[in-house]
């Protein structure tokens, strides 16, 4: 099975985020970066599928030079090779632009399965995997915890996937491959990076690509106007009455006080 895992390098979980001088993105200079959490679960699922069914796991990531560290971490955990797409100013790009880059790179590989994380820890759009599926004309499923391969491991194989819905409900779907799946956190126990893995990663191939080489226009159609820190205000109002009355009062407040409707 040839599995591609799209990974993103995001500011680490302990990052103290500050807005930069332009007010349009965050100050990156003193941040620690790490592999996006749900992408780590996507990688884990891919590695487990490889261990079970054989094949190859390729990670692909778009970003500035520093994503090389995260790519090496993925190689150390067991991915076989990587594709790095040079892409500065990820903060100015939108999901469509990034997805175009990823889809173009993925197309050259002809994989059986494409896994992405459910959403990123910084922008949290949750769209990249879905857009990639659309651009590649492939079926997709989101919120996946587990993947089961049904018949053999060739391109006509069916897979059965378990989706996590709300309130403790799960849904199982079967779909053909190739397909795109966006993976939810928590489905597996993650493996730790080992010294042996890192040493082996040194000799694994990292193919470098640029937007020009991919022949893709990745200019954003959605522009980020401004990024600001949320105002910390705390006030709790208990809405009286039964569910109907409380709901009515709530809608009024959301419309006229908070003004989000």
């Amino acid at each position: 099975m040839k599995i591609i895992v799209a990974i993103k390098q995001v500011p680490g979980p302990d990052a103290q985020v500050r807005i930069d001088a332009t007010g349009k993105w965050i100050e990156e200079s003193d941040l620690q970066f790490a592999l996006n959490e749900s992408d780590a679960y996507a990688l884990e699922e891919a590695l487990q599928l490889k261990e079970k069914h054989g094949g190859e796991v390729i990670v692909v990531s778009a970003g500035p030079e520093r994503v090389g560290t995260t790519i090496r971490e993925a190689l150390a955990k067991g991915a076989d090779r990587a594709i790095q797409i040079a892409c500065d100013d990820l903060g100015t790009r939108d999901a469509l632009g990034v997805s175009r880059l990823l889809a173009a790179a993925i197309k050259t590989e002809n994989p059986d399965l494409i896994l992405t994380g459910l959403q990123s820890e910084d922008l949290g759009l949750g769209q990249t995997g879905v857009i990639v599926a659309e651009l590649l004309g492939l079926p997709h499923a989101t919120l996946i915890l587990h993947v089961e391969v049904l018949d053999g491991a060739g391109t006509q194989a069916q897979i059965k996937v378990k989706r996590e819905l709300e309130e403790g409900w799960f849904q199982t779907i079967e779909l053909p491959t190739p397909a795109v799946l966006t993976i939810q956190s928590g489905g597996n126990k993650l493996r730790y990076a080992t010294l042996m893995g890192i040493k082996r990663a040194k000799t694994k191939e990292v193919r470098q690509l640029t937007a020009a080489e991919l022949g893709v226009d990745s200019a954003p159609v959605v522009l980020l106007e401004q990024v600001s820190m949320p105002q910390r205000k705390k006030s709790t109002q208990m809405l009286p009455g039964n569910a109907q009355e409380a709901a009515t009062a709530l809608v009024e407040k959301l419309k006229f006080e908070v003004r989000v409707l």
Partner: protein
Amino acid sequence: MILVLPTLAEPQHFSLFEKLLFAGLAVASGYGFWRQFGKILDKILQSKKDPSFRLFPLGKRIWEFFWEVLCQAKVVRERPLPGLAHAFVFWAFCAFALVTLNHCAVVLGIGFLSPRGQFARFYFYFVAAFALSCAVGILGLFVRRFFIRPKWLGEKLSYQSGAIALLIFVLMATYLASFFVTDASLTARTLWWLHTLALLGFLPLIPHSKHLHLVLSPATVFLSRGGFAQIPPLSGDEDFGLVAGTDLTRLVSLQAYSCVECGRCTEHCPAANTGKLLNPKEIVLGLRGYLNDLGPASEEPLLGKYNAQEAVFQCTTCGACEFQCPVGIEHVPILVGLRRGAVNTGVWEDQHGAKLFLALERGSNALGLSPTERDKFIEKQALPLFDGTQEYCLWLGCMGGYDPKGREIVADFARVMNYLGTSYGVLRKEKCTGDPVRRLGNDLLFQQLAEANLEALAQNKVKKIVSICPHCVRTIQEDWKEYGTPPEVEHHSEFLARYADRLPKQINDENIVFHDPCYLGRYRNVYDQPRTVAALAGNLVEAPRNRERSFCCGAGGGLAFLGEETGERVSHNRAAELVATGAQTIAAACPFCNTMFRDALAATGEGAPELVDIAQLAARGLPASGGS
């Protein structure tokens, strides 16, 4: 009345037949010895070299050889009566050197110690004293092994040991008896031959048994790694620790073959004493069995048939085993080496271990908490920030920064430092020193943490560190050396003891029992300073297992972060002992010991003694001013 002392009888004339018989037996005996010993020597020499071993400086090695081998210091000190008996047996062996040489020379007609000569007469009596004490000693050891049967010697009775004891006894008895017969008598000749047969029978038995230590252990003691619980650096890209036979180094092989199976290591092991699978003696013998069966060129995993992975991960790295070993076996690097082999290759699958590793891969502390928690603590306590101008950097560590009890210790220590007018500051950001991952064998993570920390300390211009945690102190001072030059570091007990005369002493009749932390006591040799500090607040009483025999709290070796233990909890075992001293207060000097005992004492219920750190005891006497 003239006292006529007997002289040693030596047959003066041996027939040609006797000479040939002796020569034949001696050659056979020597061959029997060499055939087996040569094999073992080969296995040791074929093992890979220890790349970080430095023979020089020789001074310490020569001293240890003199003190521990020749004077049998550790043998006697840690198990007095049996140790003394063994010392007599050993000294007799040494004293007998010339006697044995002469004994063999006599049959060939070239005896050089004539019993009538001045020197010889004195020497033979000198040796007779040793022979007597040896005979008594070996008899006592025989009784101990076969009748008293202490459990540390193992379940199975060793008949081989019985046979050796018999031979030694015969050697001594035949020697002593020779004083009471005449040269020309048949008895003298019989005694001579009995002595010879015992001697020539003994020699080939040596390499086939644990008595190989006669030959190897002086070398093993002399060739120690140089430090206590010293973990050697990995060498080269293919070294992941002790994975298979090919990873066993010469030092490890030498040590495996030196084991005398005395069980002192197991006797003091916290895991072995609380019903766990781990038995340090069996770890060493497991390696020996591997080497005997498969040799040092085998690729078969060391953890499998010969040693269990489960056992290896029950070790708290307390070092009691290594400290007790009279023949110089260094258990801690062996255990950590076996762990490295499992962790660096990803073979170790443990959900708590993985959680710890992932927490430190992504975050800054072993507890998996956000560093803003530490920031809030610093702000709340109004701890000064280190800006490069202060004398000390107060290192909080994971426990001092994030654990509630650890924070109390830091707060009180800061109060004392304020009172003393010490110039200090805390770093804005700290990463875990890496102690738990180092002891668990994760070299990738440890390297990342050590290098990141060393760089941060250099950037912040830190020259001196004081820490409340012996694990941090050890890791910073010793383990970080592999990746750079750490700043000076000391434990807060060493700091406080220096200023003890300036700290107010409280007069009361409270009994305080101090628990020696493994990483402060055995690892750092610091026993008196924390007692000096604790004594400021009451009367010191001692636990039965104290100082270098202190019983571990159970947290070390990364075990505080792993899951539930099997058998009795180590912390409960030790807490019960401390409570039984009747002291009103238990004084700790390590935030991990503190946390483990807090748990254990909660299980004790009503009437449990108070548990405090020595910093808290020191702070008690301070005036309750608002300026802290």
